[in-house]
């Protein structure tokens, strides 16, 4: 009886070690990139083009969120991390580079008469102080507030830039991606949401980006500093990258790479 258990345990260990060994023998892509899903679409577009240039250097891009990406870089699971938030105190030891700026657009349905809000009004809406569009010059309808989920880089950028120390109301609808948020605002005439400026014009149906304190969310206004809602997209590495990772970053900063990012709506000069 006892021998049987031992033998079975041995067989189990063997199976486990095979798993582990095969994990070590994993065929690695040239560069593994993980992190913010806000940055991910742009990174994928870059990688798609880079594959035409250097078909031998495979680039793997994974989502997971800014924090997960940074953790992955720290643990060595990824070569580069994508972050849509600033590095925290504890992360200052990492190497990072801003690949582009992304404006944050507050969007409403094109049917909405509201086109101009102050930062305070937006904060008031998201804190549920203002609950009806009529208070903002719109129709008498409840405002359907849409936000991103806890942990999202876009959400933390929005909280930092707009909310200060106020809280986003827990009555807000939560969507877990820019695309889903955009889709919902395009559907619902009484909704308000926020997405990357670069994605405002990317869906099949239109949404309207709101002027904030009279300033339209455009690349020029972000660049000259008059539009205040923007964040930096960072690539992060454990130390100064070399080899294929460096080559990929060089590609991003080449004229071709810049053009690609601008073409996708980011602010990359």
């Amino acid at each position, binding site marked *: 009886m006892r021998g049987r258990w031992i033998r079975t345990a041995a067989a189990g260990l063997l199976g486990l070690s095979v798993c582990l060994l095969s994990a070590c023998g994993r065929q690695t892509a040239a560069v593994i990139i993980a992190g913010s899903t806000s940055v991910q679409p742009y990174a994928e577009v870059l990688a798609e083009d880079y594959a035409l240039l250097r078909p031998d250097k495979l680039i793997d891009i994974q989502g997971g969120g800014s924090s*997960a990406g940074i953790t992955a870089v720290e643990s060595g699971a990824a070569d580069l991390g994508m972050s849509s938030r600033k590095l925290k105190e504890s992360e200052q030891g990492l190497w990072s580079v801003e690949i582009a700026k992304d404006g944050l657009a507050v969007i409403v349905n094109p049917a909405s008469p509201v086109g101009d809000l102050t930062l305070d009004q937006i904060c008031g809406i998201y804190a549920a102080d203002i609950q009806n569009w009529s208070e903002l010059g719109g129709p008498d309808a409840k405002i359907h507030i849409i936000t991103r989920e*806890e942990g999202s*880089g876009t959400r933390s950028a929005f909280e930092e830039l707009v909310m200060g120390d106020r809280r986003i109301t827990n009555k807000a609808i939560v969507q877990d991606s820019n695309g889903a948020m955009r889709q919902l605002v395009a559907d619902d005439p009484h909704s308000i949401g926020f997405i990357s400026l670069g994605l405002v014009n990317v869906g099949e149906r239109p949404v309207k980006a709101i002027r904030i304190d009279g300033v339209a969310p455009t690349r020029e206004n972000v660049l000259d500093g008059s539009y205040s809602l923007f964040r930096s997209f960072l690539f992060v590495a454990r130390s100064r990258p070399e080899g294929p990772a460096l080559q990929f970053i060089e590609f991003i900063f080449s004229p071709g790479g810049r053009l690609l990012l601008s073409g996708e709506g980011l602010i990359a000069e």
Partner: protein
Amino acid sequence: MKKFKEKLSGRVFFALALSSISALALITVFIIVNGVPLIAEVGVGNFIFGMSWAPSRGEFGIFPMIVGSVAVTLGAAAIGVPVGICCSIFLAEFAPAPLRNLFRPAIQLLAGIPSVVYGFWGLLFLVPFIRNYLGGPGLSLLAGAVILGIMILPTVISISEVSILALPRQYKEGALALGMTHWQTIRSVILPSARSGIVAAVILGIGRAIGETMAVIMVLGNAVAMPASILDPVRTLTTNIGIEMGYASGPHQQALFATGIVLFVIIMILNASAQYITRKR
């Protein structure tokens, strides 16, 4: 040689069974080990009955989601169970053969269709309908309940039908011989006799509803607040995991595992009661 094969085969089967069971045990252990520390830190009461969920501020209360799960599931049951039982009676007692032959494969197909397809359908038709005609943002408890009500139909229908068909013919023949009408027979003989099977079907359907994730992420709205009406957006335990797992790390991730434990326990209770009820028969 034969003796050797005999011994070997027994050992191999035993080893396979043992590894399957340890694999299944592994899941339970893993979820618990990863979730319990956070529950312990926050406190069971604060975790389960806490009203505020803001992991970035260290607030981990999942009560609104428990309420959300229960409300959506009850709604789904209110829609899916009566309709499902009617369908199973229809299939077992009334349906003409050609209709039955169309119905059964259709039900089976529906059980197999990816849940995201249901969610998509809800997003296309149900959500706009609710927004335009009933009010609110459309993404709502009601939308989730309707979608889940449809999704549990195959489970409820097939298990109830099997339990009706499993009844001895004599029950029905005896009742009809006593001069009961067909409907009286169904109501006073067939349904009571098949009761335990039908109850099990309902419980399993509820289990499916409470465990569904992707379809409801798309239509529920996922707000972490107590719903005041069926037109409000809500979040369930499963969608909490599904929507936040992608980004979570540290205590936030642990809190999602802890959510998994609560879900696990609810399902276990439901399932144990379903098994108890079927066994009692």
